[in-house]
């Protein structure tokens, strides 16, 4: 934290945050406490909405890491959502408790991402984007051709029927909340590490970063693998939260659309942005749900408008105006009095 940064007698000092870390810390503790006991104090339908909200937060945080910090616009992250779901299904069919398969599915997605990076990281910009989609389409077609998983029609998730419905709802909520917490805190720690500095240097000037000895390719590879693992975890909790796993739903490009819009509207390149974007998305979706897919039309248009006129997103605009950060990952130069 910024408290133990050595301070020089004269001249500017470098700080993490312009506001007191105590504010963010106490706020975080209250929120973490609330969400940990939420299934016991909020109505059951609320906790299912919250669960879907956390799944979106996981995905959007991972997409933000890819695009907002490492400059990789993936439109194929649903590949890892689907693979995470199916890894969970595989172990559950083998008799493992579905909740215990979540870390396994996460690791499998990370391992599968390694060979994929060797193909995809040869491409840049838009070519990278569409190639990620080809990879996800290929994964969908391969999984859909495996009879063990029920082919294109899908399969019921086994191993959850021994619990009562309300017990299952509680457990899946807590699992989702825990994964979301790990993903957000993990991303925060990752971006405050040396890798975070490396990513910032690539984002600001790739050529300068290279000449300063930054290994751009390996930084990108690492981020891609982390994002694959995170989306795999999201897929795994998705599989546990809905009884039926179907290729066309878990590999749906709509996941990519949601995570992209949410990150853009909330604010790319900030930890808080995707969380705020997800909250806006759920508010909009819940209030417009009787009007079909209009929420996606509105949300997509809003994302286009924000990309063109407010590229730092709503949180970025707020931060620029009020110089406030809740979860700072950068550094500030401060003139000492």
């Amino acid at each position, binding site marked *: 934290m910024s408290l133990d940064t050595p301070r020089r007698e004269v001249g500017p000092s470098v700080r993490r945050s312009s506001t007191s870390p105590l504010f963010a810390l106490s706020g975080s503790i209250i929120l973490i406490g609330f969400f940990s006991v939420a299934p016991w104090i909020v109505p059951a339908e609320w906790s299912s909405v919250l669960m879907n909200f956390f799944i979106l937060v996981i995905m959007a945080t991972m997409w933000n890491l890819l695009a907002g910090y490492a400059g990789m616009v993936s439109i194929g992250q649903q590949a890892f959502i689907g693979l995470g779901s199916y890894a969970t299904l595989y172990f559950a069919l083998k008799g493992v408790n579905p909740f215990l398969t979540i870390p396994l599915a996460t690791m499998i997605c990370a391992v599968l991402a390694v060979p994929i990076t060797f193909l995809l990281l040869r491409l840049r*910009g838009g070519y990278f984007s569409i190639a990620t*989609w080809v990879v996800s389409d290929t994964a969908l077609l391969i999984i859909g051709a495996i009879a063990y998983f029920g082919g294109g029609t899908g399969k019921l998730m086994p191993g959850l029927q021994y619990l009562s419905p309300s017990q299952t709802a509680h457990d899946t909520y807590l699992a989702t909340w825990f994964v979301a917490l790990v993903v957000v805190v993990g991303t925060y720690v990752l971006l405050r590490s040396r890798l975070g500095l490396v990513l910032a240097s690539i984002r600001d000037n790739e050529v300068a970063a290279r000449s300063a000895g930054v290994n751009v390719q390996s930084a990108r590879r690492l981020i891609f693998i982390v994002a694959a693992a995170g989306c795999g975890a999201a897929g795994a909790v998705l599989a546990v939260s809905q009884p039926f796993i179907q290729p066309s739903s878990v590999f749906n490009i709509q996941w990519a659309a949601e995570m992209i819009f949410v990150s853009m509207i909330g604010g790319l390149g900030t930890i808080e942005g995707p969380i705020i974007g997800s909250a806006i998305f759920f508010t909009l979706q819940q209030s417009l749900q009787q009007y079909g897919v209009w929420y996606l039309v509105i949300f997509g248009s809003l994302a286009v408008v924000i*990309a063109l006129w407010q590229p730092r997103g709503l949180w970025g605009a707020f931060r620029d105006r009020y110089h406030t950060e809740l979860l700072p990952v950068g550094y500030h130069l401060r003139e000492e009095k």
Partner: protein
Amino acid sequence: MIWINVVIQGVLVGGFYALFACGLSLMFGVMKVINLAHGDMAVVAGYVAVFLTPHLHIAEIWSLLVVVPLFALVGYVLQRTLIQKSIDRDPFTTLLVTFGLSVVIENLLLEFYTANAQTVNVGALGYESWHPGSIFFISYVSLGVLVAAVAVLAVLQLFLSHTGTGRLVRAVADDREAAQLSGANYRHIFGIAAAIAFATVALAGIAYGMQTQFAPTSGGVNLLFAFEAVVIGGIGSLWGTLVGGIALGMAQVFGAHFNPEYQRLAGNVLFLLVLAVRPRGLFGKTTSVS
């Protein structure tokens, strides 16, 4: 014998993919923009042909004469407004904006025209085919699309290499600032390139509707095929795109021969193989992707 059929059907499908891909290739070559809404534009052209031309009391096949110029105009306007604005920011923004457009278009089509599949009605012509051998058949519509694709590619090539405007397009593609300094208005030239790209995508969309059914969500898969054709053939080569389209078409027909579900998979596998073994494609001159 199946091999001859694979080649014939592959060439026919490949011509269609090349027609689809040349607009994508042109926009990338000139503006360095990957239009992620490219496939959806084609679907919109199909919907315009099916739902709006009946009001003009002409056969759906002649909707080409209305829709293609209309799309050229739409392309010019969209380029001068939204796409130019995003180019002025950075390449990253062009991806986000065109992806946003793509999702908005798909969902608007779903709202207005439901998820039901549509076709562009060409009457009895749609069922007729030429049988040069006992087991081969060549659909007249597919053959027409292949001829149209080759014609479009040839006209585009001639336009780019032999006309004044074509020279301007190439100049702006090479170095837009230098072209601007020499008196070319690069934004206008970008608009012209987008108009051509949108005209070809409208043609491709209607051709698609004549051959098969389409729905609001068909755009995505078509964008994938067009993109695969461009990368397999080699970025920056118009005739390479035709060869890439044909290679993709043959791989798909070959896959479908074993199992209809393997059609798309075989194409994707060919694409990933090319990416692994020869990332600049079959005819790519430079490694402009990386």
